[in-house]
């Protein structure tokens, strides 16, 4: 089984430890992913702004880097969603189709492909509020959605429940968007910041010490809001918690 690791651009630049945790976590399960060296980005920033033409070359490069693997693992729900659902600026050749189909978000990969049943090395003795990134939840279906009449389920929570000591707390609005929204955070700062502030206050009043998510981008935004409000919340990517970080 040939597995490739895609480290999204903002994780590469701002949260390298998330990429490292993902790599080490996969190794714990006997998978030594390859890291294609020329990788950059999935094209989402441009596509999110409607600029598909401007994303074309980036999408082409992505496919060149990741063609031929059995699985492409990504520690980001929103990049996975971009690749799987929106990578349409380029011709849909067989190769492109395969790359898009074989891309899995980390939680999905652990939960649905590897079907892991434990993280014996992991312990996180803290109160945790889980943040569902909207693309992870409503785009690639990480869990049931509060708007729909469907049996409750959650892939990330199933995994986190296997971590010793970790206590999940419930927010008042469990799956409301945090207001990051890619370019939205820049072009609509008023609402973006207000949504972020409301979100971090919701985490805090639920009693959370840590916010955990499968998406670093939302957490960068929320951390910025929490710091500004002086809320003592800490943010960790789910890969770090599952890999055994204790704080």
């Amino acid at each position, binding site marked *: 089984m040939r597995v490739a690791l895609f*480290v999204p*651009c*903002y994780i*590469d*630049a*701002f949260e*390298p430890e998330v*990429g*490292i945790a993902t*790599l*080490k976590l996969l190794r714990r399960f006997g998978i030594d992913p390859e*890291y294609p060296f020329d*990788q*950059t980005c999935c*094209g989402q*920033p*441009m596509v*999110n*702004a*409607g*600029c598909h*033409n401007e994303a*074309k*070359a*980036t999408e082409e*490069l992505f496919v060149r880097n990741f063609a031929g693997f059995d699985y492409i693992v990504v520690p980001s729900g929103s990049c996975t969603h971009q690749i799987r659902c*929106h990578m349409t600026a380029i011709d849909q050749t067989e190769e492109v189709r395969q790359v898009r189909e074989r891309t899995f978000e980390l939680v999905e990969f652990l939960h649905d492909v590897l079907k892991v049943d434990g993280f014996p090395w992991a312990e996180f003795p803290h109160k945790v509020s889980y943040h569902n990134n*909207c693309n992870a939840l*409503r785009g690639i279906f990480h869990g049931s*959605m*509060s*708007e*729909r*009449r*469907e049996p409750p389920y959650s892939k990330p929570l199933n995994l986190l429940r296997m971590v010793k000591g970790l206590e999940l707390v419930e927010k008042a609005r469990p*799956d*409301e*968007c945090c*207001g990051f*929204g*890619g370019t*939205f*955070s*820049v*072009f*609509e*700062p*008023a*609402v973006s*910041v*207000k*949504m*972020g502030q*409301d979100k971090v206050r919701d985490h805090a009043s639920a009693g959370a010490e840590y916010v955990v998510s499968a998406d670093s*981008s939302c957490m960068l935004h929320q*951390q*910025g*809001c929490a*710091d*500004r409000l002086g809320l003592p919340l800490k943010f960790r990517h789910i890969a770090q918690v599952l890999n055994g970080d204790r704080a």
Partner: protein
Amino acid sequence: MKESHEQRRAKDGLPALLHEALGTPDDGGAKSGSGERLTHGEATSRPLQPPPPERQPRGAKVHHRRPVDHNEAAQRFIDAPRHEKMHDERLWDLRQKRDRQMHGIPEWETLRELASSIKQHTLAHLGDHLERFEAQASANGIHVHWAQDGAEHNRIVHGILSDHGARRLIKSKSMLTEETGFRHYMQGVGIEVIETDLGERIQQLDDEAPSHIVVPAVHKLRSDVAEVFARTLGTDPNNDDVHYLAEQQREKTRPLILGADAGMTGANFAVAETGTFVVCTNEGNADLSANVPPLHIASIGIEKLIPRIADLGVFIRLLSRSALGSPITQYTSHFRGPRHGGEMHVVLVDNGRSARLGEVDFWESLKCIRCGACMNTCPVYRRSGGLSYGATYSGPIGLILDPTFDRRRYSSLPFASTLNGSCTNVCPVKIDIHKQIFAWRKALAETHDIGLGKQALMKAAGAVLSHPKLYRAAIATADGALKVLPDFAVTNRLNTWTQGRDMPEPPRETFHQWYERTHGGEEGAQ
């Protein structure tokens, strides 16, 4: 607040008050004749002053042909925290009530699917259903008119009213007449229009568009309504008791209703099979509009058609549950023909609908039954208010409808969304709203209607992100990364990221550098 507190302390040398609102520095009532502050019971137990009223934030500023600046209007709404909080919580409450209704109906998702397919079928054969409706309605004694656009609609209605010498028209709420600028037109030809829906009446008196398609004045606090009524109806400006306000409005408006020459309604559904139409309200005001005067005119968008009366139940079950979280509206009125001695007219209005039907990516928006659920759930709408969109339709449905009316002016609206997808999930007719918002961004970028700055920025980002060497060089330092990663790219130019958030910490090294240095961690380095 802090300063005046300190000043007061310094001035009278008394200990600080626990509740600052208990006294003000120039509070003469709490001073003795010699200027000393009184400390006995009566003087110190003055009632807490309510905070001064917060002025209602107004909507987006409209500049001819310039794209609406949603962010600017949203900022003003957020800067009025009592309005913003009330609005967010009121609508979130509707969303939660809707969820409870949904959980009470095991076949909820099947109903949505059914509603969606009935609408799809109807739209696919819209011409046939419209002809059938016309034939049946005519057979029922209804006069049926066709209007190509808003202007023609207004002219037709004016014609009917003139034929009857009508000077005063009472009407129930209709988004279609908002589309056509109906009240404004009627004002110009000297016909008085009285809205009978309470929320819509408030908005009419305040000369403001409805901010929500179901609850038009939802953005107003009680104190705002008291101010509007005091100004326009002469009520007591200091009384914002809901019952008082509603009663006063009723007292002032009833005589106008009773003396009206004609009545107008919209329609929630028009049934092709029977040539009848259905109006759902909670105040019964459509029945007043339709039944008090001898002349009833109904303005109906051509997408309101459903094929059979048997289909109606599907929509009635979904509509009020989705809109307000109640099982059904208080009134579901069926109109079949003119009453004895009266006259009934139906104006079927296109106003861009058939053009939209031809748009491969966007025709599904015609399935909309105007329930407002997508607005209630939208985290952006709840925090910016309907008027911040500067358009007839606001919230998620507005983002995909408005650009079909004016592509340039509303080109910014599809960007007033985080694409979180909650709207799509609540929509009772399963319009893929957030996918259409996404598709609108693409369509607008293709014709260079998203702003040249934004597009140039994306072009630059795409050039760097598609060249590994350029990308590596650019993000080698945190500073560089902030300049090149598009989500943060404009930070330095527009300085919007730091408006209410702190910047992310610069990392020691990128993942790529770490991988290179440690050969993927194989050398034991961290």
